[in-house]
């Protein structure tokens, strides 16, 4: 099955799931399902948008993929029994943790495997990552999004929370090629020297962000659109919206009550921020980090390629 067919199937599954957004769902057929997935933790040379080839790490879903260019990502329902079996094909120990859900888990030695089991927690946006290697694990790419939908099957961020017509998961991360080179050589890196030079949304840089169905935010005027920012990287991301203000709905799954209506939303390190966009005008507008070096690919700004900039297109 090729990728597009899987998306179609996933979308159908999503419809049955009562979810009209474009986030891919793990195949499932009942409430409180058993979700079994297998991830290979592996090294891979990733092509940057400017042609550079950089050694990265990833969790690759052996039967699926994540949004955009990410090789894994999960959408489950509250109460699901989730088993994630991790096969470690890297040269050093790793583990899989989910902040707020699954922490302090056992490590997997190289060539080993381990099954991490948990019950899907309260609805909201989460991520999983390797924590044995600390920030280096996330900077190398060993992370992915976990979206938990409400048990009542509603298109809401959480039971009784904001309802949406569409939803997008936007995973923010970045890399410093000097770190990747050091790790590729079997070494490590002093993270106090970390200064990233490539920046991604769902593993993609502009303009590839605009050519990807999971990452191009396609809307109709009148839609309520949920955008789930998941920062798996190790820098802050002040995300600026052109064309629209949004309402910050939750930060790390806690409803925001203080500073709500924004055009520039700080997504902190390791933070999940869900915002609601009420689409009230047509057009094509960028959504990008206002740490503008993050809109570049190693300093090249947008023309012909760049970094963490995506397009919102409303008709």
């Amino acid at each position: 099955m090729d990728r597009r067919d899987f998306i179609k199937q996933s979308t159908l599954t999503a419809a049955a799931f009562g979810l009209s957004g474009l986030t891919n769902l793990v195949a499932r057929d009942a409430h409180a399902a058993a979700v079994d997935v297998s991830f290979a933790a592996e090294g891979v040379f990733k092509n940057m948008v400017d042609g550079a080839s950089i050694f990265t790490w990833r969790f690759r879903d052996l039967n699926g993929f994540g949004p955009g260019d990410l090789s894994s990502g999960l959408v489950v329902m509250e109460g699901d029994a989730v088993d994630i079996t991790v096969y470690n094909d890297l040269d050093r120990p790793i583990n899989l943790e989910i902040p707020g859900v699954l922490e302090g888990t056992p490590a997997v030695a190289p060539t080993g495997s381990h099954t991490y089991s948990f019950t899907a927690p309260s609805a909201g946006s989460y991520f999983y990552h390797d924590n044995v290697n600390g920030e280096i694990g996330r900077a190398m790419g060993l992370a992915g999004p976990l979206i938990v939908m409400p048990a009542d099957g509603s298109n809401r961020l959480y039971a009784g929370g904001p309802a949406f017509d569409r939803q997008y998961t936007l995973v923010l991360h970045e890399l410093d090629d000097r770190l990747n080179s050091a790790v590729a050589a079997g070494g490590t890196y002093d993270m106090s020297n970390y200064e990233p030079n490539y920046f991604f949304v769902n593993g993609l840089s502009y303009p590839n962000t605009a050519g990807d169905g999971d990452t191009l935010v396609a809307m109709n005027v009148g839609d309520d659109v949920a955008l789930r920012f998941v920062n798996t990287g190790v820098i802050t991301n002040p995300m600026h919206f052109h064309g629209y203000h949004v309402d910050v709905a939750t930060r790390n799954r806690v409803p925001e009550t203080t500073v709500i209506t924004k055009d520039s939303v700080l997504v902190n390190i390791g933070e999940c921020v869900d915002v609601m966009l009420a689409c009230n005008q047509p057009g094509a507008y960028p959504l990008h980090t206002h740490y503008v070096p993050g809109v570049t690919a190693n300093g090249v700004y947008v023309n012909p390629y760049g970094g963490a900039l995506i397009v919102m297109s409303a008709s």
Partner: protein
Amino acid sequence: MTNGRTFSFLGPNSAFLNVSMNRTQVMADGTPINAWTFGSGFNNDRSVPSPVIEGIEGQVVTVTLDSMMPHSIHLHGLDVDQANDGVPSTSGYVAQMAMGGFGRVEGYTNLGTPFNYSFVAPHAGTYAYHCHVDTVLHFEMGMYGTVIIRPPDGSTNVAWAGGPAFDKEYIWHLHTFDSSWHQGGGSVSGPGTVRHRPDYFMINGRDGANTLTDPTTAIAAAAGERVLIRTNNMGYQPGLVRLGGLEFQVIASDGRPLPATIVRTELLVAPGERYDLLLQMPPATDRTATVEYYDIRLGGVLGTASTSIQGGDAGGTIFNDDFESGDLSAWSGSVGG
């Protein structure tokens, strides 16, 4: 200052901006830095930031850009339509040639032919504008400024219709320079514009000792006067604002009132964000306010801009809400909690 303003402005509702790419900003240590600016600079007395533009809520605002080089004006936070958004690949600007791009619908003008941006002014509050051509460099070079939208009646002593009144009004435009990016007249590109290592830390274009006494920044008010500080982070680093330990109200962000006013002694303003702070001047005040610029990992302070808060001779009151000072290491990205 009339109507409490401590800065000059263009408008209301119309502004004409030319461009200069050979301005010089002299830093407190005497170093001249090449800067690019719109118009005649902040208060006509310094290159950066660019002039303040004012508009009135509900009325049409026109900003005209006249440039001999490719530049644009992005009206940051004003939620203008695509044609007026100032993004070269989608919107109108002053260009040498048409550029392709996602969903491009609007034209451009040739170099030397003014381009008019227009929009209906949204909710009263604090906004920004900046060049969106090769933004990573043009923004760093100084092509940014503040937009203030006044309430529908045009009053200049009320934050928005039905909102808090104030006696004095300051803009704190937060920004930094990485001087290496300014060398060669802004010819740095590629890997030279990705790792930003600022060495000058400013408010309103002033750094070091000059910030302490700059009348556009240093707060002077009588006890009991209500001072509105419009913070606008147009740099690449988050800035942690403190008013020398004084409590202040946070009344709005990004041009929208907060659902409920909150009281803080410190506030992180991230790149692109604006927060409107209201300080009621206490008696006998002599404080040093600071903006600590953090790296993008919030791992440490890169540098600090400081200014003074002085006055408050008699009879004032201060906010007495209990407030526990925040801890940046546990910063949630929100001023809540």
